[in-house]
């Protein structure tokens, strides 16, 4: 990743235009050639610095459901609990955190009913209470991580 790549990452976190030649528009703004911009984005995706490029969809608006959930996993069963929870294809972003509520994960489902089912199944299989914390409000942030 060089300075130009950093410039591109920082710029694209601010959005990408919807028009017939969007790469040309952004390349002009950054003082790059269109082909260079396209190749660099490709490369940043290939090397994993960018995990996605393009439109990002709103799960709830699409009819799906999303929540943040947590459990208190006893230390001696921690790996086993993680394995059970991660085995659900609906579970993403499972993080261990330094608290009694030590396992935090996101559940995303195609329909809201499935979300309730997944929580129930996790509770049955782990014998733990799942704390269910779907968002009530989102406060807009610029989403910028300075490269």
């Amino acid at each position, binding site marked *: 990743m060089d300075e130009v790549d950093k410039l591109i990452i920082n710029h694209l976190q601010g*959005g990408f235009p919807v028009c017939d030649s969007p790469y040309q528009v952004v390349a002009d703004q950054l003082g790059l050639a269109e082909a260079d911009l396209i190749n660099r984005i490709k490369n940043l995706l290939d090397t994993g610095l960018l*995990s996605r490029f*393009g439109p990002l969809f709103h799960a709830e608006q699409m009819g*799906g459901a999303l929540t*943040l959930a947590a459990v208190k996993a006893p230390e001696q069963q921690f790996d086993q609990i993680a394995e059970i929870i991660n085995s659900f294809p609906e579970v993403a972003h499972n*993080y261990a*955190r330094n608290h009694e509520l030590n396992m935090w994960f996101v559940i995303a489902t195609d329909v809201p009913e499935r979300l309730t089912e997944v929580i129930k199944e996790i509770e049955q299989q782990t014998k733990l209470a799942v704390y269910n914390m779907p968002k009530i409000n989102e406060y807009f942030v610029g989403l910028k991580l300075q490269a």
Partner: protein
Amino acid sequence: MIDGVSRQLIELLQQGLPLVSRPYTEIAKKLHLTEDEVLIRVAKLKQQGIIKRLGVVVNHRRLGYKANAMVVFDVPDSLISQIGDHVSQFNFVNLCYQRPRQGDQWPYSLYCMIHGKNKETVLKQLDHLIESCGLQQFKREVLFSKQCFKQRGALYQALEKQQKVISNG
């Protein structure tokens, strides 16, 4: 609200925007539409909020943001909008949500994610945030992530599955 053509369009766009000079022409060809028709539909999806935004998702760990703190505050409901709006103005706050309290054991309502290059930086930023927004009065906890077990596009998988169900009738 979303017709069959836009469903197909969403399905294609979930694979990412084509990395070619005229990305919407490439999509239009696959859907037997014109480039203009695709652009109008994309603009509409954005206006409806179905497309949240266009741009990139960065892999924060790969970018060197190794310290990830979830900071939670017990903010009274009457103040939460005002405080949420204020907190989200700080450029080191990467996400900010109101979530339901979970009884006395977990009475927190405001969640802020702070990604930083290291723990010290994150804690300094948090001090600054607390002071600037007058958050000293609220009960809080700071949860750093220790380990990431899983990070993948479950959301996109779920939505793809949903589209298959819809397109299969």
